[in-house]
């Protein structure tokens, strides 16, 4: 690992100022991804700005706050384990608690922050391998995953430049919940909808998020969702625990008189970003909450999917996982 200068920021403004004044600097949260990438020389910052000691100035604190409208605001510095174990989250958005618990290990969840989870980089082996071509690591060099060993790779929204997937479980739940990312930079504060926060690769796979170079994530807002209690997360992976997703599904379902009144569906492990399944949702609204509805919705969502050889199985796996999760939610009665 290349050495670097280290500074602890005490306020959001101070953190942004340090970042702006130091070329090639990085914010450090829990470090569970950044330190690994630095050790592999994929990230080589000259300065690291620790943002886990920010004072509680009302915007950047380490808390989880209930909002008057029933929504919740999660400080960017809140640890993943604290979010998963929070009473409000467990009761109102169980899909988020579950998604976090399905990710990483107990030790890593105790370290990782909410903001940092959003900024995770892909676990594509060719991205990590300095001897391989990777348009994300070295723009213009090519992609060795296309035509390589691509069992873990994307089936939706990929490009000729990059077929990497986004590794987060938490973000898949946030995509289903229509979360909003609060950020602050030199130009002040702004909010970014989670579903436009992460980018598809296109021909610029190294540009992964909408975050500007001077901005810090300060909080995640979860809007109220009346049927949030009827939600769950399913992760399919190569071993029973502590592995990245082949396919994952975050879903919430509201039914009334046998029909689908409300539906949220997002997929993980299939694309360069958490994949909100709008196509599937649109086919299901108002339809009967039965298996056939879920099957045709899954078909609609995956109609544009493309396999790259080793990952062809993910297309069928994604459909079956969607149907299985939605059937379970419907059988549980839609809203608990």
């Amino acid at each position: 690992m290349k050495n670097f200068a280290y500074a602890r920021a005490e306020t959001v403004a101070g953190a942004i100022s340090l970042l702006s004044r130091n070329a090639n600097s990085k914010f450090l949260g829990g470090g569970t991804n950044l330190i690994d990438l630095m050790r592999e020389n994929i990230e080589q910052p000259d300065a690291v700005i620790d943002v886990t000691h920010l004072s509680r100035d009302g915007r950047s604190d380490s808390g989880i706050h209930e909002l008057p409208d029933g929504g919740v605001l999660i400080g960017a510095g809140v640890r993943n384990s604290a979010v998963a174990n929070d009473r409000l989250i467990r009761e109102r958005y169980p899909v988020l608690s579950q998604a976090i618990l399905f990710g990483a290990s107990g030790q890593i969840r105790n370290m990782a922050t909410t903001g940092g989870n959003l900024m995770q980089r892909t676990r594509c082996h060719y991205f990590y391998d300095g001897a391989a071509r990777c348009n994300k690591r070295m723009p213009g060099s090519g992609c060795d995953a296309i035509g390589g060993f691509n069992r873990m790779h994307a089936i939706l929204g990929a490009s000729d430049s990059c077929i990497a997937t986004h590794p987060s479980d938490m973000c898949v739940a946030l995509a289903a919940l229509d979360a909003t990312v609060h950020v602050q930079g030199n130009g002040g504060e702004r909010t970014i909808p989670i579903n436009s926060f992460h980018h598809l690769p296109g021909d610029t796979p190294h540009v992964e998020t909408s975050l500007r170079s001077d901005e810090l994530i300060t909080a995640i807002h979860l809007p109220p969702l009346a049927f949030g209690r009827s939600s769950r997360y399913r992760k399919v992976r190569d071993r029973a625990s502590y592995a990245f997703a082949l396919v994952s599904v975050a879903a919430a379902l509201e039914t009334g008189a046998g029909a689908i009144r409300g539906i949220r569906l997002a997929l993980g492990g299939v694309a360069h970003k958490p994949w909100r399944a709008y196509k599937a949702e649109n086919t299901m609204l108002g339809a009967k909450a039965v298996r056939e509805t879920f099957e045709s919705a899954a078909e609609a969502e995956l109609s544009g999917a493309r396999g790259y050889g080793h990952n062809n199985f993910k297309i069928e796996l994604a459909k079956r996982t969607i149907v299985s999760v939605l059937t379970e939610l419907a059988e549980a009665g839609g809203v608990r």
Partner: protein
Amino acid sequence: MAELKSVIDLLETGSPSSTVEIRLQINGATHHLRIEPRVSLLDALRENLSFTGTKKGCNQGACGACTVLVDGERILSCLALAVQYEGRAITTIEGLAASSAGEDSLHPMQAAFVEQDGFQCGYCTPGQICSAIGMIREFQDGMPSAVTSDVAASSMELSDEEIKERMSGNLCRCGAYVGICDAIREALDSGVLR
């Protein structure tokens, strides 16, 4: 030039780029050291302070051998910079046994690992034991897991399935998992934890 400016700016904030002077609280004692910011907590413990009980397995967050407790919570010391943990109470395997009248008495989790043969070669054991102690505390704090059927439920049982899921971040290449689970069960059932 940009690099020089970076160093100057950070010097103004009190953090020179080459080395930093930090104080670490380890097993109840304060240790002063001057290290480069890139030194992991794991390497600081082992190489700078000779706490070699904490093991380096994969050094990339995959095996759990480097697990230590920070303010009672289990973390991976290989994915932590030592400078991040200044001012926190760090507990390593060396700090678990209670000492009184010159006699060491094993922590109940250590005693249970001995009793239940929770190891073969022993390399992963310090991490397993620190992780198990942190895991029990999480369970006692009401933390659900990926196999908890209803995360909204206020109480849960620590079944064998729950123990395996919650300990999945600690690998044992010898495959002593049966003994490890039995040891954690024994330590929990003894009621002396917490």
